[in-house]
């Protein structure tokens, strides 16, 4: 039915109320039917618990930071830019290194906030193990007071280096850093921290 006259009687309504209902009628037609929820969606899942941060000894951390900065510059300076559009203009670049003594690295580039209030970002990761399960993934987080607080997106890796574009609406005020966590199906989110700033 597309004619409001076929749906309700409104001869007794004043013009304003009639116009109001006609607008609602038009919105309903424009919106279309709401979807039926699948049984798995009838209730929310358990909210994620805070991430488990794997802390390093300070000295080892400093060594890794230095190594990360050096290797990131070499690893991403050429190959990364060759494989992806160079139109991404970074306002800020953040290096990330592996927790637990691994060799993984990441470079996070953040562009200026766009017109609608999102911050585009591009993360390039190298050395993270490819996911063993089809539904496993990694997740980039903002941290506040050292704890993951806002997700910036999820991604999977393949090959030596993976580059992914993300966009988030969050303010960066008050953040303490960034981490990447590894999420395995069946485990509580956000999972173990594998990369950190």
């Amino acid at each position: 039915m597309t004619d409001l006259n076929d749906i309700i009687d409104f001869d007794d309504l004043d013009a304003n109320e009639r116009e109001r209902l006609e607008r609602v009628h038009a919105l309903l037609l424009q919106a279309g039917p709401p979807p039926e929820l699948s049984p798995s969606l009838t209730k929310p899942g358990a909210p994620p618990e805070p991430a488990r941060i794997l802390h390093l000894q300070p000295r080892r951390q400093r060594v890794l930071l230095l190594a990360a900065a050096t290797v990131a510059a070499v690893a991403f300076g050429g190959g990364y830019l060759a494989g992806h559009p160079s139109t991404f203009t970074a306002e800020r670049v953040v290096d990330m290194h592996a927790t637990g003594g691994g060799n993984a690295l990441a470079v996070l580039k953040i562009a200026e906030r766009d017109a609608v209030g999102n911050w585009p970002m591009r993360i390039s990761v190298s050395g993270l193990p490819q996911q063993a399960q089809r539904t496993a993934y990694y997740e980039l987080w903002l941290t506040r007071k050292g704890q993951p607080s806002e997700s910036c997106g999820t991604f999977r890796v393949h090959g030596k280096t993976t580059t992914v574009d993300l966009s988030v609406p969050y303010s960066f005020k008050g953040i303490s850093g960034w981490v990447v966590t590894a999420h395995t199906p069946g485990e509580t989110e956000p999972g173990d921290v594998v990369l950190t700033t």
Partner: protein
Amino acid sequence: MAVALALRTIGPVTSDGELIQRAATGDRGAFEDLYRRYARPVFGLALRRLGDRGRAEDAVQETFASIWRSAASYKPDRGPGAPWLYAVARNAIVDRARTRTDTPTENLIEQADDGAGPSEQAEQGWVAWRVHRALEELPEREREVVALAYWSELSQSEVAEFLGLPLGTVKTRTRAALAHLATLLEDELE
């Protein structure tokens, strides 16, 4: 009279923004209220954009996980909760599209819509989001007649027969439902 009576049944409800702020403090009840209000709009948006129920279900789960984690970043002085929730959902859906395909993602958010340009598609997505959210606030018996009147392809006489109600009752109930929706969608009607 029927419309006036029906309008009075809409009592003061906790705003979306208040629920988000409460969720930010770890209030799971508030989080579940948000889920009740927005699960269907999020799923509808995800289906519209991703075109696949399985991926849309994943996007719903990720959206609400993201809402829970990032609720503290919501600033009520910057606007009501619905646009913030829409932005979080939209990002989660784009992320879902990006992580599950190797295809370019620039226009993925709009790929399931045909014929309209990006701005029209965005507008349609937002309208559907708001309307589906408002439908969740209707009493069940009003939501039922709206669904049957608009999307079942039945005439109102057939709806009346289906529900075992007089035709006049079905039309009155539908009109009350539209009046409720008009109140709930005040911003869209301006």
